[in-house]
């Protein structure tokens, strides 16, 4: 069900990828988690990051919006460094306000949803547009209603996260990220914390989102989703990109030994 992507004519010439990562290294203490990742995500692409737990795929995703800093290499999002400025031949750490401003163009959906527990679904979705983009309340509310309708939660808008099922919470979280009209959406194992019967409703929302041409980077164990919706599958092992290509190709007939070993376990 690989939906036809509408040609995005309004966008500038797509020569520069939305996400461009070069030789990204990252260590936690003595453990080197990322060992030189190179990756490109083109506009409208749905890139699925596959790999065993501990392979570094979630860490890499969190580096894209600078929730984690990197030790060397660089990541450009929409042509900009998220956490740094190039000044006088060196990369300098950005001021927190600039990091925040750039992050606001990158949507993120977490494994544990992380909805704000003291706010209703509607308030969760309007918070960032009002506080970060300084949008007026009416505009933010109007968009929030539209987004919650779109993820199928028209009758749950005034519910608190604690009153929603995991699948509903994750759909609110997707609406919350979309409210900032991001250039790219990052998904960190969005269905891993869900009961099996709730996985489908979240994947449906993501599938619809992909069909609208949204650029997505998805860390997932859902091979079915990667195969059907993904435009590229990237297999990461021990902090390196091992294999990359058309999802059906990577998943059904992988070239690399470690990809085969991993797929044998999850399929």
């Amino acid at each position, binding site marked *: 069900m690989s939906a036809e992507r509408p040609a995005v004519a309004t966008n500038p010439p797509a020569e520069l990828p939305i996400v461009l990562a070069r030789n990204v290294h990252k260590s936690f203490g003595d453990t080197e988690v990322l060992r030189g990742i190179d990756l490109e995500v083109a506009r409208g692409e749905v890139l699925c990051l596959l790999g065993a737990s501990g392979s570094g795929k979630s860490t890499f995703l969190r580096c894209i919006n600078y929730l984690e800093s990197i030790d060397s290499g660089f990541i450009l999002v929409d042509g900009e460094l998220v956490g740094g400025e190039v000044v006088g031949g060196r990369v300098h750490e950005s001021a927190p*306000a600039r990091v925040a401003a750039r992050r606001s163009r990158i949507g993120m959906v977490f494994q544990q949803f*992380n909805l704000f527990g003291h706010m209703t679904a509607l308030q969760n979705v309007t918070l*960032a547009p009002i506080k970060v983009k300084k949008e007026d309340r009416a505009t933010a509310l109007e968009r929030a209603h539209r987004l919650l309708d779109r993820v199928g939660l028209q009758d749950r808008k005034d519910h608190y996260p*604690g009153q929603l099922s995991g699948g509903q919470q994750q759909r609110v979280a997707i609406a919350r990220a979309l409210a900032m009209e991001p250039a790219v959406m990052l998904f960190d194992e969005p269905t891993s914390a869900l009961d099996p019967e709730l996985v489908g409703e979240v994947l449906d929302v993501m599938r619809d989102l992909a069909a609208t041409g949204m650029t997505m980077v998805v860390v997932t164990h859902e091979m079915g989703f990667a195969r059907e919706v993904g435009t590229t599958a990237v297999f990461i092992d021990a902090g390196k990109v091992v294999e990359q290509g058309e999802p059906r190709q990577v998943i059904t007939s992988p070239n690399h030994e470690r990809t085969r070993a991993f797929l044998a376990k999850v399929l």
Partner: protein
Amino acid sequence: MAELQRRAAEGRSQPGDPVTATRTPVDIALLTQISDAPPIRRRRPGETALVALIAVLAVFGIAVLVTNPRFDWPTVSRYLFDVSVAHGIAVTLELTVYAMLVGILLGVVLAVLRQSGSPVARGTAWLYIWFFRGTPVLVQVLFWGFASALFPRLGLGIPGGPMLFGIDTNTVVPLFAAAVLGLGLNEAAYMAEIVRGGLLSVSPGQAEAAHALGLGSLATLRHIVLPQALRVIIPPVGNQVISMLKMTSVVLVIGVRDLLGSVTEIYSRNYRQIALLLVACVWYLLMTSVLTYLQSRLERRLGKGVRTDVR
């Protein structure tokens, strides 16, 4: 078991004691008839004895209060609504409010500093808490009361050198301000630990999600973390308010005329110490009772509003 057997042998057993109750066949027809009425309550000899003891003590206590003329109840009732006592109550309440405000605001700052990434900030907050929790509040209040002895003039200058401009310390730090500072700075050290506990109770994912949406650290603290930490922070803050109300009485030592100060001032003239201390007790009890009631209502409301992420 042995005790029950002995009681059964002496014929003192109650119906339902295990020894006599074993192997009694139940007449279902009879049971159906009588089971409309609730079961007869067992006698509880220990409980009865305790009630009797408390009753005796209560009677004695009341008798002592009424018959001992040295309690001097007429004087108590004469001064209960005295103008200078009322003024003292106002000062006590003002001290409580201002000292708690200083304590809460500074406490939040200290709690945030303790969680900061900077070792200097963390160390500074730790040092503050170490000092202000490690010395008695009475001593701290005395220090502020004698601030003018330590720094006779306040102003800008070089330590050990000349002062560019300055004013007399006693004019900037009047006794009331000294009392508020003494109580508030001490309170901040305790409040910092309470607030820190509250901040730690909020899952780190909440701040992460806020950052990912582009909220800065301050906005994240204000809109996301603090509101959710309040659920954990408010109950102990209620306790702190109540204990602050009583702790304000230490300002007596620097001569601030709070509730205790005004009754001591009166009894230094008429020598009715006991009666006037009773006046103070009545008002302290009344105020702490009101606060306790307000606190329990607030906690019930917070408890109802609890909405947490399902994890």
